[in-house]
């Protein structure tokens, strides 16, 4: 599904130049569950953003389903993204002005799904993350765990092939964190490919493989199964 080779990303500000990714290469197969670990600032989020087509690399190749997407323009990336990729962030990133239902509905609106179908699919996925009873609440009215479950629901409502999760449990206590990990595992079992950034060895153990990074490069890969 994903094959990156010699991926580079450099941030330049007025004073400093930060090499966030330094000739990074690895592969993720269909249906895999990969955890990315490493110290803060080593480039994990940068990697995820590039994998999620939110950002473009400065050099290197990125094959997504055998298609080279490193040079895609903004519109093509957006198109690919909305049909194939779901995101989960550490800070949930729900829209405060929209209800739970509306937040989850948003990706369907942008992919042009009809109203009735949208309702059905949103309810389905809200059921699955057990937040149906809170469908008309606003994000601020929910606990962190509940918010993250809504975020997961939003990430999967479009049935993406790939889910990218950036420290999904980083802001949660262990109970809530486990619930979210449980959800991701279920999704993976149903065939969704998952790439997850985490600081927690405990969470990493839910995955099939751990990629360890340091200063924009992979150092080791541990295969868990």
């Amino acid at each position, binding site marked *: 599904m994903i094959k990156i080779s010699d991926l580079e990303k450099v941030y330049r500000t007025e004073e400093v130049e930060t090499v966030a990714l330094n000739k990074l290469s690895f592969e993720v197969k269909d249906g895999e569950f990969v955890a990315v670990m490493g110290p803060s600032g080593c480039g994990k*989020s940068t990697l995820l*953003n590039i994998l999620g087509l*939110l950002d473009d690399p400065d050099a290197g190749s990125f094959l997504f389903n055998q298609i080279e997407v490193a040079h895609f323009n903004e519109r093509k990336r957006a198109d690919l993204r*909305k049909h194939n990729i779901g995101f989960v962030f550490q800070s949930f*990133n729900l*829209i405060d*002005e*929209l209800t739970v239902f*509306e937040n989850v509905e948003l990706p369907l609106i942008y992919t042009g799904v009809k109203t009735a179908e949208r309702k059905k699919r949103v309810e389905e996925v809200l059921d699955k993350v057990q937040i149906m009873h809170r469908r008309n609440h606003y994000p601020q009215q929910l606990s962190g765990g509940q918010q993250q479950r809504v975020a997961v629901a939003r990430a999967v409502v479009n049935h993406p092939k790939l889910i990218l999760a950036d420290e999904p449990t980083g802001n949660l206590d262990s109970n809530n964190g486990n619930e979210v990990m449980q959800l991701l595992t279920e999704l993976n079992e149903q065939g969704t490919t998952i790439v997850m950034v985490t600081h927690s060895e405990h969470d990493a153990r839910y995955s099939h493989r751990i990629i360890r990074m340091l200063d924009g490069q992979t150092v080791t890969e541990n295969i868990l199964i």
Partner: protein
Amino acid sequence: MFKNYLTIAWRNLKRNKIYAFINIAGLSIGLACAMLILLYVKDEVSFDRFHNNVGNIYRIVSKNKYNGQEYKSTNTGFLQGSRFTQNVPGIKTFVRVQSGAEDIKTGTDVQSQDLLYVDSSFFNVFTFPLIAGNPQTCLKEPRSIVISEDMAKKQFGTTDAVGKVIMIKEDSAFQPYKVTAVARRSPQNSSIRFEALLPFKESADDARNNDNWYNFFLNTFVVLQPSANLNTVNTEIQKFYVRDAGQTFKEMTEKYGGGGTMGEYFLQPYIDIHMNPELGAQNGMVNGSNPTYAYILSGIALFVLLIACINFINLTVARSVKRAKEIGIRKVVGGERKQLILQFLGESFLLCTISFLMAIWLVILVLPLFNNLANKALAISYLLDAKLVGGYIILYLLTGILAGFYPALVLSGYKPVDTLYSRFNIKGKNYLQKSLVVLQFTLASFLIIATFTIYTQFNYLTTEDLGYDDSNLVILHKDRLKHTDAALFKNELLKNSNILGVSAKNGGQWGTAARNAIDTTIQFAYETVDEHYIPLLKIPLLQGRNFSKDFPADSTQSVIVNESFVKKAGWKTPIGQTVNFWYNNNETYTVIGVVKDYHFASLNQKIGPQLFTMKNDNMYGDYYVKIKPGSATASLKWLRSKFKEFYPLSPYTYKFKDDDNKRAYDDVAKWKQIMLFSAFLTIFISCIGLFGLSVLSAEKRTKEIGIRKVLGASVNNVAAILSKDFLKLVAIALIVAVPAAYMAGDKWLQNYPYRITQSWWLFAGAALLVIMIALITVSFQAIKAAMANPVKSLRTE
């Protein structure tokens, strides 16, 4: 999708009430101003266009040169209309319109009625619908009268008035006139408006006498054949005039002298009259306007709307830090830039729609006030005009786009990777926002200084010493008053101890020209007075003496002149000099006194040459009555009863001279008010915008403020830091506005021969005011932010 946009737009509004209030208040005021001005402009443009024939109606006007200077005149006389129509091909018909007044009565009460004398072709030329009567024949009989529906109701209580009789005074006796038609009320956007029409009076001799080429007192309109060429007609008119009047002109100049040429006649399109300040609506035509008004009003409306749009742009962009996360998320879940642009445009249109509805309500609310200021009689129903509605829709769309497009473009361009990791901050130094604030305050300061200038000038005009005493002076009007009759009435009035003095003077303002011995022509104001006039008005006498009963020659040969007259004549020793009147070569007059120049006209005019006479053949028209201060009620009662006793057939009207003088400045008073309103609106909208920005800036800097306070900064300290940036912008605005306002003010003041000088304190005062207002606006929020508990603000980060 659309519903989603609307939902979030609506929730955003509800959640950010200050922001919504600022934008809606600003935009609705701006839109209301623009709507009113559109209404005004539409009315101006449609003025006089309701006549079916309007494209072919022209007025005969002329231009002439005296002493190398060109003068244009709208006036014509008996001959121009009839002779041109008879002799110049292409002219179909003509109508003469002369303004006047008659004493009328239907019962016992005599009233003075303003009316127009018109030729019987009036209704062929102009389209004024009749309720009853025949437009072809209603003005044919000499003693017929056409009245308006309003007058019919007033005089007879019904519009069914055809055949009824109105008594009109001819010389000294009332004669019956038959109402032959009742006309609909003249449209308010008409230069000709009438309550009553009488057939134009012309004797066979008037029509024959070639001297009448040079007797100007009315407006003549002609209708051209649709096929006629205006240039050809103009050429033919002039050719005919030179041929027909050439001999007369030669005789007249030989007889009376004068530095004029024959002059040139040409046709002015009827629809050009309303907004032509040079050849305007005069002599019975009303509501003449000036395109400058339309420009200034439109400019002000645009200012206000622009300032409101700037608020919207600035606040939306400043708020975008808050919305950046939302934008990032929308993009992450698949939103494209185009869709986001649409979303933000949708939000601006929602605000704009609410503001638009508010604006309609505002317009309806302030229309009466606006009518008063703009000298209009616009009704709410006018708003329903199709073109106007179209204009409003365009205005609405333009505002929505103007206000919404830039923010939409900026906001939709945010990259999700930048916005989702709380690293986000608006980049750059916000030059656009700063320049827009500067622009707002420049406009507002400009208008405030302009208002100060107008106020000071108005104050000067209305309080400046006139050079005579106009207090407690009542003017009673009585037409065609013989000198002997006036003396009787004067003596009677003086029997009441409240009456301190009485004098008589010619009515209205007369002017003529004179030659002195050295043969220079002097145009002067020609005042026929009695011996009491100069002392009564406390006009200072500089040389010689006042008129006196002791010198019988005073009522035939003596004149008194003012300083300007002396200067113009070039006399070293004015007393004893002689004056020849232009129109009558045989009479010469001797100067017996010189008065100090005083403002006999308004301060809008330079004091010109003035000449007083007591000549017996010139009739008086006004009594000047000086009453004891504080005795107005009793005195007026006395004057009225005596007037009715002496002149039962004349209408009684009175006015106070000082009120009358002030009326000359009504125009300035109106502009004063308009400027005050616009200055108030612009500074208000600018300030609420500034307030919004200061709220946002304080929010953005919560953390910084918290840290500063923890490190020991005082409330004043922090408030100063927050206010300083904004005040800098206001200071820049003032630096731009002051010279601009100075130049504009100077240009405007040039219209006044007597004017203030714009002194530094005027600008300093305005600048101080602007700074104070801005300071209050920003410091309010700054102090609030500075007083907040730093622990709280740091924790929320």
